[in-house]
C-alpha cells in the first residue's frame, strides 16, 4: 500500500480480529474487481485508497446489495454484515546520524573541505511513492544553536523527481557539493561538503550539531543533538591568559598560585610574541591582567614580557606544562596539547627583581652620610618561607663565628628598602651627625708609618693591577704571610684574592680601587683615599661579589670617595630578588695578623702638661 498520506496499512477487522488486509490502492466506494462481480470474497486481494484519510480509526461498512443479485451496484459481504474498523497510523521519521560529529574538524579532517553525511529514516515506508525520494520529505542539519546558528543545510523533496538542498547562515563557509540518496529499508542519506578555508578566526569555537526531519504526513523529529565539533580555520590559535604578580610568594610558586585569589593580576604588561616569518604579535594586559591574541598554528614564537618598574623577573613555575611560562623570555610552540585545539591559555607569573643591594656579615658599617640599601620584598618573603635570603643590611652568621651583627651607623639616614630591619638579630643602628671622622689618615699618613718598615719594592709610585703585584699576583696570600702594599695611584683588582688563615694583606692606595666585573671574591684590608668601586656592565647580569675583610673609602677624610656598587645581579633565582650583589664579611683574623705583623700600627697617645 503506497499511502500518499503516510498511512501504513489498512486493516479490515471484525471484533478486533483482523480479517484481511487491503493492499490495493483503490478509492473508497470504488467497486472492487475480483473477477467475481460486486462480491468481496475472503482470500482475494482488494484495493482501497485511503488518500485524504485522517489518522485514527475508521469503520467501513460493507453493505450487501441484493437488488441486482451480486452485480455491479450491489455490495455484499460474503461472510458477514459486520462493519469493519480501519485504523490509520503514521510513524514520524527518525534522525539517525551525522558524521563527523566529534573532535576537531581541522585536526581530524585536516584541510579546508570537510565531508558530512546526515542520515534519516522513516520505517513506515517500504518503498518510495513514485515521484518522491523518500518518505522523509525534509531533512535538516544545523551547526550551533538556533539563536545564532553557524550554518543550516536543508534538504527538501519537491516530488516528481526533484529536490532542493539549501545552505544558510554560513559565515565564511561555503558548501561545495551536496547530494541525497534513498536506501531501501528506510534510510535517507544527505551528503554535503563544506569548505572552511575562509573561516573567520573570530568564529572558532565548539558547535553542537543538530538534525531535524519531517515526513510527507507532516510528522517531525525535531532538532536532535547529534554531537559537537571544534571548528576553526586550522591556521590560527587563540592564545589568552593572565599575568600574575607573584612577588609576594616568590619563589615558592606553583601553577596553583596563578589565581587572582592568591596573586594579584598585573595590568599594563606588554606581551610580545615574535613568530618569525609568521609575524609578530603584541598585546597588553587589561585591568584584570588578561590578554588575548591569535598566533599561527604550529608556529614557534619567542615571547617577551615587559612591565614598567622593577617587575623584570618571572616566577619559577616549572612543571606547569603548556599552561604557564616561567621565564621573562622564552619560546612557545603554538600547538595546543589538548582540546579544544583552536585555543590555548598561557599564564605568566611575574616577580619583582628589585635593585641591587649589599649585605654585611659580622662587621660594623660606618657611613658619614646616609645608607640607602634597597632590599627587595622578595627577599623578605624568602626569609619568611625559610629561604636563605636575609632581608637585613647587617646580619649575624654563626657559621662564620658571628653571633651578632655589626652596628650600622650613619650620619643622616639608614634605609633598607623592603627588608625587615637594619640588622639581624638585634637591629643595632646609630643615627648620629657627630660620628668621628679621621682626617689625614690616608695614604700619606700610612706611608709615613710604613716608611722604615715596608720594603721599597712594596711601595709603588703609580697605579697598579693586582695581578701584577708581587706577592698578590697568584691570587693567594698564604698563612703566616702579611703583604703590605702602598700604591700612589689607582688599584685595579683584576683577579680573585684569597687570604688564607693567619695571613693578611693590607693594601693602601692614594686613588681609587676598582674591582673588575669578573672578580667574584676579594679578601684583605683595603684602604683608598678615593672610592672603592665594584665595576659592572649595566646591560648584563653580574656575578655576586664577596668582599671579606675591611674596606675603607675616603681614608684621608676629604669627603671625596665612597663605596660604589655597579654590580646588578638582574632577574632570576640568582638575581637581586634573593641575593645581595655584594657581600661584605668581617675578618677578625686579618686584624690580628696585621697587629702581630706590627708594621702598620699606631698607638693611642695622650699628651698633657702637668704641674712641675
Amino acid at each position: 500500500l503506497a499511502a500518499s498520506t503516510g498511512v501504513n496499512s489498512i486493516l479490515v477487522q471484525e471484533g478486533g480480529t483482523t480479517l484481511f488486509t487491503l493492499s490495493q490502492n483503490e478509492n473508497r466506494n470504488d467497486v472492487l474487481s475480483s473477477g467475481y462481480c460486486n462480491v468481496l470474497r475472503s482470500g482475494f486481494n482488494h484495493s482501497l485508497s485511503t488518500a485524504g484519510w485522517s489518522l485514527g480509526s475508521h469503520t467501513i461498512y460493507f453493505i450487501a446489495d441484493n437488488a441486482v443479485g451480486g452485480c455491479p451496484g450491489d455490495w455484499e459481504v460474503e461472510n458477514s454484515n459486520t462493519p469493519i474498523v480501519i485504523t490509520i497510523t503514521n510513524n514520524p521519521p527518525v534522525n539517525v546520524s551525522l558524521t563527523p560529529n566529534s573532535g576537531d574538524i581541522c585536526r581530524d579532517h585536516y584541510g579546508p573541505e570537510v565531508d558530512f553525511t546526515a542520515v534519516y529514516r522513516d520505517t513506515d515506508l517500504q518503498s518510495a511513492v513514485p515521484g518522491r525520494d523518500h518518505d522523509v520529505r525534509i531533512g535538516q542539519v544545523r551547526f550551533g544553536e538556533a539563536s545564532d546558528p553557524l550554518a543550516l543545510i536543508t534538504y527538501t523533496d519537491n516530488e516528481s523527481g526533484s529536490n532542493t538542498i539549501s545552505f544558510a547562515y554560513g559565515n565564511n563557509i561555503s558548501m561545495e557539493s551536496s547530494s541525497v540518496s534513498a536506501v531501501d529499508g528506510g534510510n535517507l542519506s544527505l551528503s554535503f561538503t563544506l569548505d572552511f578555508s575562509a573561516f573567520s578566526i573570530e568564529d572558532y569555537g565548539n558547535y553542537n550539531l543538530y538534525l531535524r526531519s519531517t515526513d510527507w504526513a507532516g510528522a517531525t523529529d525535531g532538532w536532535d543533538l547529534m554531537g559537537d565539533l571544534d571548528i576553526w580555520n586550522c591556521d590560527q590559535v587563540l592564545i589568552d591568559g593572565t599575568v600574575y604578580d607573584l612577588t609576594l610568594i616568590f619563589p615558592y610558586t606553583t601553577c596553583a598560585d596563578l589565581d587572582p585569589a592568591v596573586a594579584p593580576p598585573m595590568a599594563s604588561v606588554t606581551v610580545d610574541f615574535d613568530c618569525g616569518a609568521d609575524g609578530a604579535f603584541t598585546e597588553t594586559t587589561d585591568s584584570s591582567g588578561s590578554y588575548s591574541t591569535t598566533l599561527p598554528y604550529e608556529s614557534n614564537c619567542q615571547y617577551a614580557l615587559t612591565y614598567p618598574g622593577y617587575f623584570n623577573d618571572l616566577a619559577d613555575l616549572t612543571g606547569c606544562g603548556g599552561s604557564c611560562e616561567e621565564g621573562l623570555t622564552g619560546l612557545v610552540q603554538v600547538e595546543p596539547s589538548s582540546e579544544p585545539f583552536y585555543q590555548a591559555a598561557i599564564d605568566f607569573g611575574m616577580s619583582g627583581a628589585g635593585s641591587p643591594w649589599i649585605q654585611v656579615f659580622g662587621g660594623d658599617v660606618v657611613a658619614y652620610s646616609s645608607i640607602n640599601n634597597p632590599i627587595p620584598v622578595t627577599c623578605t618573603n624568602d626569609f619568611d618561607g625559610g629561604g636563605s635570603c636575609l632581608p637585613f643590611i647587617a646580619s649575624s652568621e654563626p657559621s662564620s663565628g658571628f653571633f651578632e651583627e655589626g652596628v650600622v651607623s650613619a650620619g643622616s639616614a639608614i634605609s633598607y628598602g623592603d627588608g625587615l630591619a637594619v640588622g639581624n638579630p638585634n637591629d643595632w643602628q646609630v643615627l648620629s651627625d657627630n660620628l668621628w671622622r679621621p682626617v689625614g689618615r690616608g695614604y700619606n699618613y700610612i706611608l709615613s708609618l710604613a716608611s722604615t718598615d715596608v720594603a721599597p719594592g712594596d711601595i709603588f709610585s703609580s697605579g697598579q693591577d693586582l695581578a701584577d703585584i708581587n706577592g698578590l699576583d697568584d691570587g693567594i696570600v698564604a698563612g703566616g704571610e702579611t703583604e703590605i702594599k702602598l700604591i700612589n695611584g689607582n688599584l685595579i683588582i683584576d683577579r680573585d684574592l684569597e687570604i688564607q688563615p693567619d695571613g693578611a694583606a693590607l693594601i693602601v692606595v692614594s686613588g681609587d680601587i676598582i674591582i673588575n666585573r669578573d672578580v667574584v671574591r676579594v679578601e684583605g684590608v683595603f684602604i683608598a683615599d678615593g672610592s672603592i668601586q665594584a665595576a659592572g656592565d649595566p646591560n648584563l647580569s653580574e656575578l655576586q661579589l664577596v668582599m671579606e675583610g675591611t674596606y675603607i673609602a675616603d681614608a684621608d677624610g676629604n669627603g671625596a670617595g665612597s663605596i660604589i656598587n655597579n654590580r646588578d645581579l638582574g632577574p632570576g633565582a640568582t638575581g637581586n630578588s634573593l641575593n645581595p650583589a655584594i657581600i661584605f664579611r668581617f675578618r677578625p683574623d686579618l686584624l690580628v695578623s696585621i697587629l702581630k705583623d706590627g708594621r702598620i700600627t699606631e698607638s693611642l697617645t695622650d699628651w698633657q702638661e702637668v704641674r712641675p
Partner: protein
Amino acid sequence: MIAKLIIKPKVFHRSPSSGQVALIILTVMATALTLGLSMSERVLTDLRISEQNQESTRAFSAAEAGVEEALRVIREGGVTSDIDISDLADDLGVDEVTIDSTTIGGTDQFSFSQSFQSGEIALIWLRNHDANGDFDEASGYDDASVDLCWENEAALEAVYFYRSGGSYGVRRFTFDPVADRRDFSGGAGTGNHFSPPTGAGCAGMNLSGTVDLSAETPLFLVVKPFYQETRIGVLGLSPLPVQGYEVTSAGSITQNTQEKISRKVKAFRSWPMPLPMLFHSVFTTGISGS
C-alpha cells in the same frame, strides 16, 4: 655846644712772664720724665717676661723632647734609664731634663686619661705584651667578664675579639643609658635597640656594662662610644694586662741661681694597635649604586 663823648674800649696788652714759662717747661719735663721712667720700667719688665717666656718655652720643649725621646726608646725596646739626660739637656739648652716612665694598667681597674668622641675607637688589651712590647697571646686576662665604664649619656659598643682554637672571632655588646634612644618608635630605621647599662658605673664614671668573656680566649676589646664624648675605663675581676705606658719628662732652667723655670709633660701611649678605621667592615663617606 654839645660835647661829643666818645668812649673807646680799653685794650690791655700783656706778655707772659718768664716765671710762668719756666713753670710750664718744668711740668712738661716732669711728665716726660715720668713717662720715660715708666716706659723704661715697662720695657725692662717686658724684657724680663719675654726672657722668662723663652726659657719657659725652652723648658717645655725640653720636656716634650724628653717625652718623645722616651717614647722612641721604649718603642724601640729600650728603657728610659738608657737615655743620657745630660746630653739631652745640653742639646736642648736647658739646665736639666728629667724622664720617668711607668706602665699603665696591670691592676683590676684602668681608665684612659683622655676622652673619646662619638665613633672613635678605644682598645683595651686582654692579653699581655712581652718585654719588647709585642702582643703575646700566651697570657693575659682569663676571667669570665669585665665591666666597661663610661660616663655622661653616651652609648657604647664593645667588640670582643677572641681566639677559639686556631681561629678568631668577635662578639658584640651594646649599651645605651637613654631609653628613648634605645626604643624610639618613630618608624623604620629608628631606635638603636641597644641594651641598657648593666651597672651604675665604675672607675669613677657613672655608667657600666658587663661584657661576657667566657668560654673563649680573650684578646682585646674594641670600644666605641656613640652620640657623646666620654671617658672610658674598665674594671676586671682580676688585674688586667698592662695597657701601655706613661712617660713624664720635665725641663728646667735656673735663672740667676735663684729662679728656676720648670715645665713638665706627661704622655700616655698605648701598645701599638691596627689603625682604628680597620675595625669595621665598611668605613666610608657613603654607599651608592646599590
